């Protein structure tokens, strides 16, 4: 019970910190937010500008703005986008779908690729491991924005196997998800393979084989679970970074989503949206890391509270 409370406390601390960080960024922002609000090619008069300034409360003292902001956050009000003049909450929830879809597909893809690659190659002959190491190395070294361009060029423009748009259907998800997944899969496979090899070298794995278990059975029944602990931790971290990766991948594939929204907001200094995305990431992080702690305890009895 107390651990649950502690966890919740820590989670809120992180969220509060992220909110404060975002607010600090807002305050540090040079330039007139009203200009941002109006966008390029504007013909708004000074009167309109003052009106906007008062409406958003930019003329109040910083602390007042801060507490007002926190107060609104607590009630779930993330404010309104400067540029799009729409509630940030709606903007984010609208865009969450495609990004979540992309991220989920990428995670599944990455984990599946990694598990297959690792289980097949761990502890094998030198050549097999060198080949596995090589693909993992290339995969983690690939910039996703370039990989996306290559895949688009090859499969959409040249071979015309995959459509270049169509966020709705599964087929259109293949290339973006692959783009996002491949570098992650490389890293996961690396970690998983090392974890498997470590586990396989452990006495308990040899003992299991001495008991008459087959190679594959030892890998799947004993070693994989050990490697899974580190894999789970890493996957959790990666889910967080997916949000960052989405910015690039969504740009390359011209997809809608949180990434595209973020990029648009950053380019326009649309702080309320940027702040909303920061909070979203923090929430995702807190949720995922807690979920992973639980998962970790399921996998590894040694970390269970006594």
């Amino acid at each position, binding site marked *: 019970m107390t651990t649950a409370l502690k966890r919740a406390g820590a989670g809120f601390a992180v969220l509060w910190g992220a909110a404060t960080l975002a607010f600090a960024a807002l305050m540090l922002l040079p330039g007139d937010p009203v200009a941002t609000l109006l966008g390029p090619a504007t013909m708004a008069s000074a009167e309109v500008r003052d009106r906007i300034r008062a409406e958003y409360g930019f003329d109040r003292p910083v602390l007042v703005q801060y507490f007002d902001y926190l107060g609104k956050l607590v009630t779930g009000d993330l404010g309104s986008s400067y540029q799009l003049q729409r509630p940030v909450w709606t903007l984010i929830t609208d865009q969450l779908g495609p990004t979540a879809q992309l991220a989920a597909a990428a995670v599944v893809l990455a984990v599946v690729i990694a598990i297959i690659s690792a289980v097949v190659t761990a502890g094998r002959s030198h050549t097999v491991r060198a080949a596995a190491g090589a693909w993992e190395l290339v995969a983690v070294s690939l910039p996703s924005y370039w990989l996306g361009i290559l895949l688009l060029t090859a499969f959409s423009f040249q071979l015309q196997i995959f459509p270049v748009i169509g966020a709705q259907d599964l087929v259109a998800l293949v290339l973006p998800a692959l783009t996002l997944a491949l570098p992650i899969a490389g890293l996961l496979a690396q970690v998983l393979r090392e974890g498997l090899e470590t586990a396989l070298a452990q*006495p308990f794995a040899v003992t299991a084989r001495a008991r*008459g278990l087959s190679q594959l059975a030892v890998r799947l029944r004993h070693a994989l679970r050990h490697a899974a602990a580190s894999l789970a931790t890493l996957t959790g971290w990666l889910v967080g970074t997916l949000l960052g990766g989405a910015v690039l991948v969504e740009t390359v594939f011209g997809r809608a989503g949180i990434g595209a929204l973020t990029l648009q907001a950053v380019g326009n200094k649309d702080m309320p949206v940027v702040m909303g995305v920061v909070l979203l990431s923090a929430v995702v992080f807190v949720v995922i890391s807690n979920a992973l702690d639980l998962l970790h305890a399921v996998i*590894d009895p*040694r970390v269970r509270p006594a």
Partner: protein
Amino acid sequence: MIDVDGLTVSFGGPPAVRDVSFQVAPGECLAIVGESGSGKSVTARALVGLAGDRATVSSRGLTFDGQDLSRLSEAGWRGVRGRRIGLILQDALVSLDPLRTVGAEVTETLRTHDVVPARERNRRMLELLAEAGIPDPEHRAGQHPHELSGGLRQRALIASVVAAGPSLLVADEPTTALDATVQVQILDLLGRLKEAGSALLLISHDLAVVSRLADRVAVMYAGRIVEEGPAADLLADPAHPYTRALMAAVPAAHAKGTLLSVLHAGPSGACAYASRCALADDTCREEDPPHADVAPGRRARCHRPFERLPELPPVGLGGDRKAGPVLLSADGLVKRFKDRTAVDDVSFELRAGETLGLVGESGSGKTTVARIALGLLDPDEGTVMLGERRWSGVREKERRPGRRRIQAVYQDPLGSFDPRHSVERIVGEAVAITGSPRNRRRARVIELLDQVGLATGLLERRPLEMSGGQRQRVAIARALATGPDVLVCDEPVSALDVSIQAQILDLLATLQRDLAVAMLFISHDLGVIHHVSDRIAVMKDGRIIESGPVAEVFGSPKEPYTKELLAAVPALTSERSPR
């Protein structure tokens, strides 16, 4: 039952196991002994085809119950492993999957070989745990290895290995990591299995363990069997000088004041042991001795079997020393950590030139006492005096000048060195403390290395580039560099091989003789303690429950716990026993 003929295993380089042959019959126990790295474990694993992917295994014959194992396919091996040959791995405490319950591990054997019908598996598993001597098996079966003590884990492992009723049991160092009391129980368990008709291949580096159980003994050295024969004969009168050295290196067999090690270095020769052998002559260096009969039922690989080694010279301290002034005294020390009292009302005195041995099982508070003595930890209650100076509960500033008078040697020398520093820097840092001028430091370091028997060539080495023995010598050199009156040695030899252990103990004894330092010597190994101490103190749960001169405590222990400890010491069943 099993007949091994000419087994050779290599990992690319020179073979780790060379031309090894032996047989074990049902109900018989063959023990393989030898120092670390001699190839015992590789031999054991080769018997079940698990020498490793990188291993090349060849043999003239490897038959089990008349079946040729050397031709088995992977699937074929699976039928043998666990079902007909059970292997208890060397690293007992980590040989159970930490993520699964012990019950699941035992059940896995039952399922893999379909020993009993599925619905009876659980019942049989509990039976097996009970047979292995695990109390309350219903409860324990659902627990994970980390919730079990070392002894229980080893029992569970044995239960999982014998679950399918293998007729040959290979036990690789089954008692090494265990407390002395638990060791005895595990050996008893193995003994019962042997009596029930299993063939037992027992592997150990510890002759004392072997002497308890083995019918026959094979001694391995550098991948080969150098001597074999009936246990009683062989232990009573070893033919090979290596066997002799192995036996002599057991500290428990010697009283304080005798050297344990044989320090001879010679040119490498055809007999693998020649370079370490005190008896080696030209023949040994030119010709590899054949494995020949040396007595009825006994074979050895030696040109000069049964020849006696020269008597070991006494160090010369004997028991007739006068006690010096009190250098270190502790009075009523108490140290509590969050939820437990690690040290509880501990008092002792340490006089110049004497060694106080502190013995006790793991967690009894020995290290905590040592750290308090070293001034690295302040006691919650009680005081420590270093000579006339108050040593505990004072500011670090006041303590700093006194630090050079009390130095430490740790169990893990590697961890006590900055991994980036060379030997010269490590020892030099301590030399610098004494205020020795910069240009004289190197000379002083060389002098210290010489004192601990290390060559100048080691100056540039980093900790990782040295052997365990060398590291411990460097650690001692560093401790001596400040010219201390008191040395606190916390398990200084526990991580070392018997033969290296002997050398280090000798070195410490010699240094104490020459420099008249006082030593607080901590060990859980009664043999070692017995060998080095003048007086000993026995710790349990943070308290000193018994203390006195070594002969007194060992000879007529008063506390039941001390008795139990002493009884558990595996001793050679020969006249060399300390008792």
